[in-house]
């Protein structure tokens, strides 16, 4: 017979092993190694915290009392698992993409981040979870007492052992559940330890079962005979309970906080569901396989009145198989501890996130200034929450006295937690579900559950017998276990039927009648259409791969150089083991800050979340991004204006280019013209100078004549060069004007006399000298140059028999207009437009000049702020000169 001391030693050894496993797994995960920690096998095994001590011990007890009814508790989850494709897959996708931390968070998030709902769910979960924890403590205590009864030393004291067990579990949960604050709320250490425990409990139960079938009954055949011959040997399951319990267990499987924790929160890869879909039902099947044989054999061989809940332990003991009993004890211990740890973790997350933190933040007065220190507060809140929840469980156990009342607590907790189901399923599949609806449904279901099941189950303390039997205030149709006068139902079935149906009706009706807030509607769309909105989160291929992704993204935003520098610096900060830093929270925070400088805080947050959390953008992120987009829109408006400006500039440039090309062509043609004008006199000069050099027999007349030609042509060249220089000075604008005062009359006098002097041709100049007494303030020499040009043109080109030039002047409001009209044939219409161009000459006579005269006139008049134009329809050639009376600098 194993002594209690050995038992305690084994227990402690087992706990130390769990600590070691959890610690090693955390270390491996932190180092980015141990991909098997995130395998689908670990995931499936971690789901088995569904099988608590209530399963381990209670299933056999249940089978001994009601036959096959116990199996409903495992058939429900099986149905849920095999419908993973449209059920759990969506739940997990939503949970992961919205970084949901608990079932309360999910419900609250779906219904517009309503904290009221979160608090409701949290209260419900704590109310349902506390007795459940007490149940686990009881099972451990009971199993201890079995060994203690057999131990003669009698040192065992029940109360203190329960306390130490509760304290130990609390320490474990605190150590591994709140060691760090992972953004994804994943705890590799705890999950791995749980997986180990689930192997242990399955192995223990299978071992006991095999021992019973082959060791006690003597094989499968005899076992079957024995089953049929036993007092539970026939199918006599209540149909209502059968259906209800399958449904209830299915609902609880999804809604239980601890199940949500391992199934959704700790999920690292959606693909794991594929494996779990068949592996977890298989696990449940194996767990259930030997339950009936153990129960039947226990009923057979154990003395009348022994507790069937402990057959798993007592049957091997009674057969003297101490080591098997020890294994069985460890299996039960495993079931209880794993459930308590995960429940405590899940509940503490809910309590701290939805109750403690909101209160703390509101006492801090404004959340804007809260910085990274919140992490400490959150961790502290969780640790205290775990301790408080464990203490609640402990006190519940002590107060309830650990009696048989606890046995039914498992189902009662199931029924309570199942009240979340309508809000959860409705939230996932019905866009019309609203916060009001969820609140109404939850409240109705919760109250009915308390009224019809929880209070009557707790005995006469909280609910008087009179109420139970004749209803409150004598209203018999309100009797807790026979609502609306429908009697004779099993209390469980009664509660589940009424609470869930009224819950659902309230949920639907209130949803239909209420109108959701915009945030709620956005969330609804995101949840219900999660497969349209989110990409399938990839499996975690290790954190270094994430760092690479982050690196690539950062390069795109910051540019390659700064990104490399930043990552290098971070890697060195972390110890410089690798070239890329590990994506620790601190690093991610700094990276986010770095990126937000470039792309805005919300976008940076969403981008990093996308890579690290495998999560999609939350609505708050979206709203913030929308704000940033508005700014971007404004910015793009500015860009558009700039782009229009650029287009304008480009057009101007194109125009300038065209102009330049034209100018270049003009320059070419000008040079060509200049070349022609220079070469022509040169040809004559060269030809005649060669003639005079080479020809001996030239007559003196010829010599004189040829020398005269050479002289004329040389003069022509000089004139041409003078004109060219003059024009280039005028065109370049570098000409300096000598502004002086005089009358128009004296300027014309000088021009006429200088032109007509020394010429053999005759030209009569007609003037009205009285009209010419106009005072001018301008460059008089330049103006005179224009007049000389015009008069000499008339002198040269006027083809009348008696050439006449009429010069008339008018004062036209600040301007003086002088017309030069001769009596010749004028300039042909086709040439009028080009007379002012350089080298433009009308008619065949070239001897007069290079054709630059009028071009120079035009330039001069522009400089003087006036103009020169050809006047058609005056009989002969007619030019009009117009200039301001007073020269203005601005005219330049």
């Amino acid at each position: 017979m194993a002594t209690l001391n050995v038992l305690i030693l084994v227990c402690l050894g087992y706990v130390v092993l769990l600590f070691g496993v959890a610690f090693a797994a955390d270390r491996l995960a932190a180092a980015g190694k141990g991909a098997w920690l995130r395998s689908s096998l670990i995931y499936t095994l971690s789901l088995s915290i569904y099988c608590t001590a209530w399963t381990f011990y209670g299933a056999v007890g249940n089978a001994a009392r009601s036959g096959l009814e116990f199996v409903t508790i495992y058939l429900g989850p099986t149905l849920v698992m095999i419908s993973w494709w449209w059920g759990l897959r969506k739940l997990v996708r939503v949970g992961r993409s919205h970084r949901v931390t608990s079932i309360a968070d999910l419900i609250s998030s779906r219904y517009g981040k309503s904290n009221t709902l979160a608090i409701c769910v949290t209260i419900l979960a704590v109310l349902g979870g506390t007795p459940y924890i007490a149940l686990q403590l009881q099972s451990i205590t009971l199993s201890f007492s079995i060994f203690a009864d057999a131990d003669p030393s009698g040192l065992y004291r029940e109360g203190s052992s329960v306390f130490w067990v509760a304290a130990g579990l609390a320490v474990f949960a605190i150590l591994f559940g709140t060691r760090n604050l992972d953004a994804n709320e994943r705890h590799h250490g705890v999950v791995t330890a749980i997986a180990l425990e689930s192997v242990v409990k399955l192995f223990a139960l299978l071992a006991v079962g095999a021992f019973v079938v082959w060791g006690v009954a003597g094989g499968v055949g005899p076992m079957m005979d024995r089953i049929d011959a036993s007092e539970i040997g026939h199918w006599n399951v209540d149909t209502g309970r059968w259906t209800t319990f399958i449904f209830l267990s299915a609902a609880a499987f999804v809604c239980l906080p601890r199940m949500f924790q391992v199934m959704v929160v700790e999920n690292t890869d959606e693909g794991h569901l594929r494996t779990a879909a068949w592996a977890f039902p298989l696990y449940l099947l194996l767990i259930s396989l030997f339950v009936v044989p153990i129960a039947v054999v226990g009923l057979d061989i154990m003395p009348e009145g022994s507790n069937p809940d402990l057959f798993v332990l007592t049957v091997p003991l009674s057969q003297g198989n101490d080591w098997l009993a020890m294994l069985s004890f460890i299996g039960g211990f495993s079931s209880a501890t794993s459930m308590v740890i995960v429940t405590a973790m899940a509940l503490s997350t809910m309590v701290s996130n939805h109750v403690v933190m909101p209160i703390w933040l509101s006492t801090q007065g404004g959340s804007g200034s809260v910085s990274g220190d919140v992490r400490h507060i959150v961790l502290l809140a969780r640790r205290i929450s775990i301790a408080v929840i464990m203490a609640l469980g402990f006190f519940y156990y002590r107060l309830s006295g650990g009696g048989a009342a606890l046995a039914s607590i498992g189902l009662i907790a199931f029924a309570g937690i199942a009240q979340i189901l309508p809000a959860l399923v409705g939230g996932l599949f019905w866009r019309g579900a609203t916060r009001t609806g969820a609140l109404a449904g939850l409240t109705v279901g919760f109250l009915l559950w308390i009224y019809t099941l929880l209070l009557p189950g707790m005995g006469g303390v909280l609910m008087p017998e009179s109420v139970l039997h004749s209803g409150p205030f004598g209203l018999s149709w309100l009797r807790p276990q026979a609502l609306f006068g429908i009697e004779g139902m099993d209390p469980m079935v009664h509660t589940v039927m009424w609470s869930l149906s009224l819950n659902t009706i309230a949920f639907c009706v209130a949803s239909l009648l209420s109108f959701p807030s915009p945030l709620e509607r956005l969330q609804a769309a995101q949840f219900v259409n999660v497969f349209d909105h989110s990409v399938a989160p990839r499996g975690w291929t290790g954190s270094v791969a994430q760092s690479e992704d982050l690196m690539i993204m950062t390069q795109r935003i910051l540019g390659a150089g700064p990104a490399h520098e930043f990552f290098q610096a971070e890697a060195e900060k972390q110890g410089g083991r690798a070239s890329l830093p590990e994506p620790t929270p601190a690093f991610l925070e700094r990276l986010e800050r770095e990126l937000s400088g470039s792309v805005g805080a919300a976008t940076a947050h969403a981008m990093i979340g996308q890579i690290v959390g495998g999560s999609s953008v939350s609505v708050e992120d979206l709203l913030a991004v929308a704000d940033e987009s508005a700014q971007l829109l404004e910015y793009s408006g500015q860009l558009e204006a700039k782009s229009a400006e650029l287009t304008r500039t480009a057009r101007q440039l194109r125009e300038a280019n065209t102009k330049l090309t034209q100018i270049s062509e003009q320059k070419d043609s000008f040079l060509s013209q200049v070349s022609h004008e220079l070469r022509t006199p040169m040809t004559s000069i060269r030809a005649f100078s060669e003639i005079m050099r080479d020809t001996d027999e030239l007559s003196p007349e010829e010599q004189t004549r040829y020398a005269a030609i050479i002289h004329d042509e040389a003069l022509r060249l000089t004139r041409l060069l003078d004109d060219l220089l003059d024009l280039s000075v005028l065109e370049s604008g570098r000409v300096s004007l000598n502004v002086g005062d005089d009358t128009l009359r004296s300027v014309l006098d000088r021009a006429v006399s200088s032109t007509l002097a020394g010429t053999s041709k005759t030209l009569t100049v007609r003037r009205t000298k009285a009209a010419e007494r106009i005072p001018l303030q301008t460059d008089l020499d330049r103006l005179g140059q224009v007049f000389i040009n015009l008069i000499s043109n008339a002198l040269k080109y006027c083809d009348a028999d008696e050439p006449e030039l009429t010069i008339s002047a008018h004062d036209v409001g600040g301007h003086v207009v002088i017309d030069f009209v001769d009596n010749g044939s004028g300039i042909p219409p086709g040439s009028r437009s080009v007379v002012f161009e350089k080298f433009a000459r009308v008619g065949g006579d070239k001897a007069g000049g290079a054709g630059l005269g009028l071009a120079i006139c035009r330039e001069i008049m522009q400089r003087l702020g006036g103009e020169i134009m050809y006047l058609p329809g005056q009989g002969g050639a007619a030019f009009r000169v117009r200039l301001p009376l007073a020269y203005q600098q601005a005219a330049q």
Partner: protein
Amino acid sequence: MSRKVLLIEDEPNIAEAIRFLLTREGWQVETHAEGADALQVIRVASPDLLILDVMLPGKSGMEILRDLRELEDMQGLPVLMLTARGQTRDREMAENAGVSRFMTKPFSNSEMLTAVRDLHAQATQS
């Protein structure tokens, strides 16, 4: 046998110099200063050699040459072209139009005379 040259040139001084030089070589020189009616003048004069300026009033030397080469009986007429513009493009155009010799002003007298002699020699040989 008298050799006849037709000189179409609008610069009177240049025309006079060429006339002087060619007369001394034994040429009979006719001059004309207009482009527009040049073809007719050529046909009437039917010279042994044509000296043609490019820049002419009315019609450019290039056009005259082009039109001239269109005429069947003018295919073999040697044409010496003179230009003051001196651009390679003009030389190409003139060669395409069927010029016999192309000279840029100002030219040396001996050069011009050699060209005239060569052209005449070629024309008489063929």
